[in-house]
Each structure stands twice: as structure tokens, then as C-alpha cells.
């Protein structure tokens, strides 16, 4: 095993980003799409923390806190929209919501 450096953390973050992106693009269930967005935001946070540690500055961690605040707001509003959507349309499958499609 190689001793992990910043590159290793970046590779883990890239894998998490790709997994989250595939989740957004592939899944039909809107709740799983919201979970995938959380995965993407977490991969960004890993990057910020790694570079914060590399340069011995706390700026990156402050940025990561901001990302967390926005992620929590996004989850709350997203889930409220999803419940309103389910009440009006009776489905949470992304490919059945085609009202705006021509």
C-alpha cells in the first residue's frame, strides 16, 4: 500500500463525483437523484479540505462549511418541492414528469 498523499484524496473525490453524476443521470426516482446531489457536494468538500490541509490554511474548511449550509437548504427545499409534486402529479419518477416536454 502506498502512503496516501493529496492525489489519493483527489482520486477518491473524483470517483465520488462520477458516482453522483451517474446517479443524477441514470436513476428515475427523484429522491435518489437528490441523494446523488448530496454525494456530488461531498466530493467537492473533500477537495476543499484536502487543499486546506495541504496549505495549512483554514480557508478551505470555511468554504466547506458554506457548501454544507447550501446543501442543507437545497435538501430541504428539494424535498418540499418533491412532496408538492407528488401531491399534484402522483408520481416521483423523473421520466414521467414530461409536462414541459414538447
Amino acid at each position, binding site marked *: *500500500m*502506498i*502512503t*496516501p498523499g*493529496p*492525489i*489519493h484524496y483527489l*482520486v*477518491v473525490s*473524483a*470517483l*465520488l463525483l*462520477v*458516482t453522483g453524476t*451517474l446517479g443524477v*443521470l*441514470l*436513476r*428515475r*426516482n427523484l*429522491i*435518489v437523484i*437528490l*441523494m*446523488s446531489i*448530496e*454525494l456530488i457536494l*461531498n466530493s467537492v*468538500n*473533500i477537495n476543499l*479540505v*484536502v487543499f*486546506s*490541509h*495541504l*496549505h*495549512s*490554511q*483554514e480557508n478551505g*474548511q*470555511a468554504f466547506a*462549511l*458554506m457548501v*454544507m449550509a*447550501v446543501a*442543507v*437548504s437545497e*435538501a*430541504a*427545499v428539494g*424535498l*418540499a418541492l*418533491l*412532496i*408538492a409534486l*407528488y*401531491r399534484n402529479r402522483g408520481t*416521483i*419518477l423523473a*421520466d414521467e414528469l414530461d409536462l414541459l416536454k414538447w
Partner: protein
Amino acid sequence: MLGTILFYTFSVLTVGSAILTITRRNVVMSAVWLIASLLGVAGLFLLQGAEFLFVAQLILYIGGVVLLILIALMLVSAQQPTETKRFRKGWPLVLAVGLLLGGELIFVFTRAALPAATAAAQVSGANTESVADTLFAHYLAAFEVASVILLVAIIGAVVMGQRREEHQA
């Protein structure tokens, strides 16, 4: 040596659970694997010396966001017929493009010349203390804006979530 073992453990936990999150048929199982993945990310934060973010990750994400997702799931998914198809049409193409993107990112990262690590200028105190110093000394405006964003999110969630009886046709 212990740090190396912990890094690989947390990495496998993070990425493996993330893959399980997006592939489970049952959405509740997806949420459970999401918890495992977020725990792995929290462990990576701890290995990078970000203790405050580690605790924030546990409380905010696992205690807050995942719980919220599970509650929304109870409101929505109980009446939902079981999902027959998990993935959209044309998923092999999307999967191929996603794997291409991943390969490209890893190719670039393994060839990147990162700047050398900067040594700490002075012996700083605990991590929580220094994060608070940075946050309130340099990013006070952003901190206040974040509180406004949270307020707007609360109001937005309440407005979106309430039932409107008078518009029922």
C-alpha cells in the same frame, strides 16, 4: 501505517457505499447506504485534520439531511407502486460517458504537479478554534448571507409543503 489503513478503509467505504446508493432498487436501502458513504467522507475529513467538519458532517448530514430524506420517503414512497425499472432508457451510453469522465479526471490528477505543501506559519490551536477565527475574521459577510439562505430555505420549504385547499378543482 495506521493512517494508511484508515485512508483505504474510508475510501472503500465512501466509494463502495456511493455505488450501492445509486444502484439499490429499494429507496430505503439507498438512504442507508448513503449514511455509510457520508460516514466514510467524515472519516476522510478526520484524517485531514478537519475535526470541526467531521462533527458537522455527522450532525448535519447524517442527523439532518438523511433523516429528512427518510421522512420525505415515508410521505411519498409508501403509496408508490414498486419501481419496476430503476434506470432510464439509454443507460449504457450514459454509463460509458460517466466512466470516460472518471477516467479522464483520474488521468489528469495522477499527472498533476501540485504545489508543495506549505508548513504551518505558527503553531495553531485546536482546529475548531482556527476555523472559527478564519470564518469570523475573513468571511463574516458570507456567514451572514448563509444565515439568510437558511431562512429563505425554511420559508420556501414551509410554503411548498403546505396543502392548498382553495385551489382544488
